[in-house]
């Protein structure tokens, strides 16, 4: 076991290497174990216990929290929570879809710029990517204010009473979500579009392929790596988003994120909050699994 070996120019033993390696891994891994893995396990444990009358934790094991999430309550079955979960998945799906549809023209546009201004346009997409989400969300308050054309148009069409803003409602949530996540799709997609082999596109056109066919068979397969990363980067965090629905959806359009926040805030029902979080985690893992093979092909960071 203690055989000497040469490890990149160093004469050492496997044991020595392992010792030094552990020294390097130690601090970081210990941190991740204590503040990431352990809290994750605690979250699972707490999702299986009971909430006391004053919001304290009582270590009586039960699956009541999960049953509640599935809709079973003292007063029979209700679909309330199920609806919120499905709505979150649906909103995340639509947000991803709209972002993808808008990202393709944007990426093609940026790629076609001359190299100097290409960086300018790319930076224009990167800035919102890094701008604080609270600011980017509440900024829609201004655009949707009653004094401005959008709300006036909606009033004219009879959607909202005169003098009221165009939020909170589902439309505002979609606006906020798409503007929040659009750069998450555009940036990885752009990385793929930049490397696109245009000769294949030209060949398809020369052979009289229709526009749809050119896209489906010449462009889509080539941009799939970037597109997959963009979809994951959007769909997964969009399911757990809580700022946008909280500010732009109000109580009318709650998502899972709001439900979780409510349990840890006003309701002070940690076990139920933990159960919803685990539910969201399961949804996340399912969606990651669906895309796992594809996303391995590209490093995003």
């Amino acid at each position, binding site marked *: 076991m203690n055989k000497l070996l040469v490890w990149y120019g160093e004469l050492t033993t496997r044991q020595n290497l392992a010792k030094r*390696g552990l020294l*390097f891994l130690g601090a970081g891994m210990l941190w*991740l174990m204590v503040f990431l893995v352990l809290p994750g396990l605690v979250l699972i444990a707490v999702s299986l216990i009971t909430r006391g009358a004053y919001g304290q934790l009582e270590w009586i094991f039960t699956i009541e929290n999960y049953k509640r999430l599935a809709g079973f309550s003292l007063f029979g079955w209700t679909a309330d929570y199920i609806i919120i979960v499905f709505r979150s998945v649906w909103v995340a799906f639509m947000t991803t879809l709209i972002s993808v549809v808008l990202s393709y023209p*944007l990426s093609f546009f940026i790629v076609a710029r001359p190299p100097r201004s290409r960086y300018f346009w790319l930076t224009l997409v990167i800035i919102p990517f890094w701008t*604080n989400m609270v600011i980017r969300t509440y900024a829609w308050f201004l655009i949707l204010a009653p004094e401005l054309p959008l709300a006036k148009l909606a009033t004219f069409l009879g959607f909202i009473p005169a003098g009221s803003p165009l939020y909170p409602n589902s439309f505002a949530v979609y606006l906020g979500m798409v*503007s929040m996540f659009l750069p998450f799709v555009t940036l990885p997609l752009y990385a793929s579009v930049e490397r696109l082999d245009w000769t294949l596109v030209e060949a398809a056109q020369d052979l009289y392929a229709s526009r749809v066919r050119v896209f489906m068979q010449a462009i889509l397969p080539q941009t799939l790596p970037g597109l997959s990363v963009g979809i994951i980067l959007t769909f997964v965090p969009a399911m757990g988003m809580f700022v946008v629905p909280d500010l732009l959806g109000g109580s009318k359009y709650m998502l899972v994120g709001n439900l979780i926040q409510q349990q840890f805030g006003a309701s002070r029902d940690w076990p139920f909050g*933990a159960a919803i*979080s685990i539910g969201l985690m399961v949804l*996340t893992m399912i969606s990651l699994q669906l895309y796992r093979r594809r996303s391995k092909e590209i490093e995003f960071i």
Partner: protein
Amino acid sequence: MKKPSPLITVVALATVGFLYLPLVAVAVFSVNATRYGLVWRGFTLDWYIKLFQNEFILEAAWNTLVLAVVSTIVATILGTVLAVGMDRFPWSRKANTFLDLVLHIPVVIPDIILAAALVVAFGLLRFASSVFEPGLLNMIIGHITFQISFVALVVRSRLVSIGRDVEEAARDLFAGTPYLLWRVTLPLLLPGIVAGAMLAFTLSLDDFVISFFTAGPESVTLPLFIFAAVRRGVTPQIHALSTLVVLITVILIIGMERFTRK
């Protein structure tokens, strides 16, 4: 390269407009002289001046800075050492898969799950020590937890790209381990470490969810302050504050771009 059709150009420009319309609106109304409503009453910088007289905002700005600086320093050190530990030693396939999995958790899960897990864990740790009362220290711990992953991933990709030839050459020339790390690996790795630290710093400034869940009444940061203020009703002062935050973000991004492109 193909020239895009006019339709693509129009949709692309409209999309960029869609991204910037809200931010431009905030900037415009931050210099509007009216206090209520959205009617244009002339240009003023009053809201910016008042910002610097508001002690709550100054305190929030200070908290934000302390949080970002402290967590970035700790996460950069831990993340860098962790990346070297993962990349430069002969771990078994199984060990590598496990390390990789743990490292990717904060990157892929929705941040609200990490926030919920931290709330629960801190809640239980509170029985052991009052250190874990909600507050700045807890926020720093939370931020470090997700920053480590990003730093380690960035530094590790730099480790892979610089290869091991130079290190091997140094070993052949009888460099000891401390000398090798300090005089060979670290200088080569520095661009990666700086890029990782900048990413971590921006992530900390950008974070809302982790802070929101772990903050105490004494540890309000700028995003938390803006969120609370917005729920009470937006004011021009908030627009001014937000505009400043966006400007700082822009400066950081341009700095980061300059640095990483060279």
